[in-house]
């Protein structure tokens, strides 16, 4: 019987105490490059900013998912990432091939398991808000469904921004070219497949969005 095990109760109590006393905020400054130069050089600070949303828009084979997975792989070894899989199409073996630690990647498929209880697009937005605001994940990518015609879309977008600022995560919004949701993102890139890689284009930056994107 190890001495450490004998003190486990005490340690557990101390951890709870420390948790209460040390409400250290999640790291929410700086940015993380994904390692794809054609994308990183377009982003403020040379990478995906923490505590802000970055929108990657493109067609179904534009390379945007690979960019998000490359970002996950570039995070520190102890960090967690989450992927809200709106379409239920993420193929985890590809993520592993890109260097993502699957044990640290939470996949959320709201539409598939909701049992029809929730509107899939709404369930995706709700899950995204919960994950972005939790402070538990270093990065959250959201494969969003089109929300054209969704009532209250602007309010949803504001809530997402508030959540990502609160949680300090890197928010990556993967959207079709015409998603119908106008996000207050720190940057919006349009991606398209090209021979030997992808081409990226910075298309928009909304005033007052994000903010913490100066320090690399």
């Amino acid at each position, binding site marked *: 019987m190890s001495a450490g095990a004998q003190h486990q*109760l005490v340690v*557990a109590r101390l951890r709870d105490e420390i948790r209460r006393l040390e409400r250290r905020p*999640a790291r929410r400054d700086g940015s993380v490059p994904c390692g794809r130069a054609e994308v990183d050089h377009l982003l403020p600070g040379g990478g995906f900013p923490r505590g802000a949303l970055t929108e990657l828009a493109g067609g179904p084979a534009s390379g945007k998912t690979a960019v998000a997975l490359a970002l996950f792989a570039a995070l520190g070894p102890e960090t967690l990432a989450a992927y809200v899989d709106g379409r239920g199409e993420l*193929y985890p*073996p590809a993520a*592993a*091939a890109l260097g993502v630690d*699957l044990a640290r990647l939470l996949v*959320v498929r709201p539409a598939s398991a909701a049992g029809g209880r929730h509107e899939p697009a709404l369930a995706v937005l709700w899950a995204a808000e919960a994950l972005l605001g939790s402070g538990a994940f270093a990065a959250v990518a959201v494969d969003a469904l089109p929300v054209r015609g969704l009532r209250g879309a602007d309010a949803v977008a504001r809530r997402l921004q508030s959540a990502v600022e609160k949680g300090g995560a890197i928010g990556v919004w993967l959207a079709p070219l015409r998603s119908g949701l106008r996000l207050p993102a720190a940057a919006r890139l349009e991606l398209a*497949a090209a021979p030997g890689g992808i081409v990226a284009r910075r298309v928009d930056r909304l005033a007052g969005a994000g903010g913490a994107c100066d320090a690399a």
Partner: protein
Amino acid sequence: MRREPGPPRVLALCVPELPLQRARRARERREGDRPLAVVAEGRVLHCDADARREGVRAGETVAEARAACGRLETVPVAPAADQAALRALAEAVLSLAPAIEVAPPDALLLDASAAHLASGATGRRPLDEHARGEAERALARQVLAVTEEMGWVARAVVACGRAPARALASHGREPIAVVAPGELTRALAGLPLEALGLEASVAARLRALGVRDAGALARLPPGTLGHRFGPPGVRAARLARGEDDAPLVPYAPETLPEEALELEAPAESAEPLLFGLKRLADRVAARLAGRGLGATRLRLVLALDPRGEERVHITLAQPTASAARWLVPAKEHLFSLRLPGAVTALRLSAEEVAAVEPEQLAIGDRPEAVAALEGVLARLAVRLGDGALFAAEPVERYRPEGAYRAVPFRPPRARAGTVDGVVATPRPTRLLAAPELVVAEGEGGRLTALRVGGRARAVLAWEGPERLRGEWWSSPFDRDYYRVRLDDLGDCWVYRDGADGRLWLHGFFD
């Protein structure tokens, strides 16, 4: 450490009036509680202080007790439940001693020979008498702290031999006592004859002979008791002299812990439930911690008024014996419940457990992040269902859609440095759940376009094939996969089905 001759050092933990304590512990205290007595065969076995104040005494009949106190509430003694409670307590202190014996009806016997380890000593050097006494006292304090956390009031005595230690604990007054080996006979001398396990008739005969306590019995010449009092008399005399070399019979728990609580009043909101749940969680967590285990899945059963029950399964991201961490997802579940009736009782059990390493805080560690993780996972699970969130685990299968499986998200504490499941062959980042039929268009035997979703797209380049086939024993497949770059779309994963030659779009290199 040097092994010492003679009886082993034993810590006896005695829970006085255990049936009464158990009855009180299983329900919340409330204003206007009636005096309580535990009865067996029509007589009062134990009664609480309120009952004693009203004149109820142990040993009198239930009718006499009721005559003294009309408000008296009686509960029948339940030896099986008492033993289960003792075993639960043994689990909670399991990590504090190398061996623990459950000694019904009201005691646990702990091997105290390694007491110095519990206080952090290495055990490489023999301890002197004083240091050993201090270590044993520290062990007793630890044991009593856990016991109190489990909701019991108990006494702990450390002495040589299991029977002497137990006798001293059962009849002692102080919550903690450490009896040095040379003082055992003197400590035992003041005990009544009943403390030596003698039958009342034998004790009465000894008293008639002028032997009134254990000290007097110990002074009788050895060998004179056998022919008059038989084996019980000899055993009692040996015990009175502190002679007991019998080893402990270690207890090894076989079932996972479960604790229950009756609520003070039927609860119709989450707050009183949380209050009771916290108490249960503390108890179950202490029992798991004693075994070096942490829960990964808990079951909470809410008994409803007037009948029926609601079951809640709580999945945890990491195995833990920290009750506070269990409460984070438990709250999410409780606040989301819509119950048809008020809750009258709670039952919490560990459904799945895993060994947990002693937790170490590292610089840069953010313990609050763990709580945040448990909280958000619980919120997602409550709203979307357990199946909606998972981690993917690679599976060695050629069939692409079977190359991973969903497992509960339980991130390891630290990454080993390599990433499991890396595959050399590029795979599409998106895989369609239902492959889409595509039609090839060509000129002069050359593929020029694929019709996808009713629209023809020019083929700009293609690689392949990569042949994937197998599973002939269940549902065989035979596919030639191509990576095809289509105009205005990008790289797609298309396969030709070997069975009928048709082309299917299976994924995107998004």
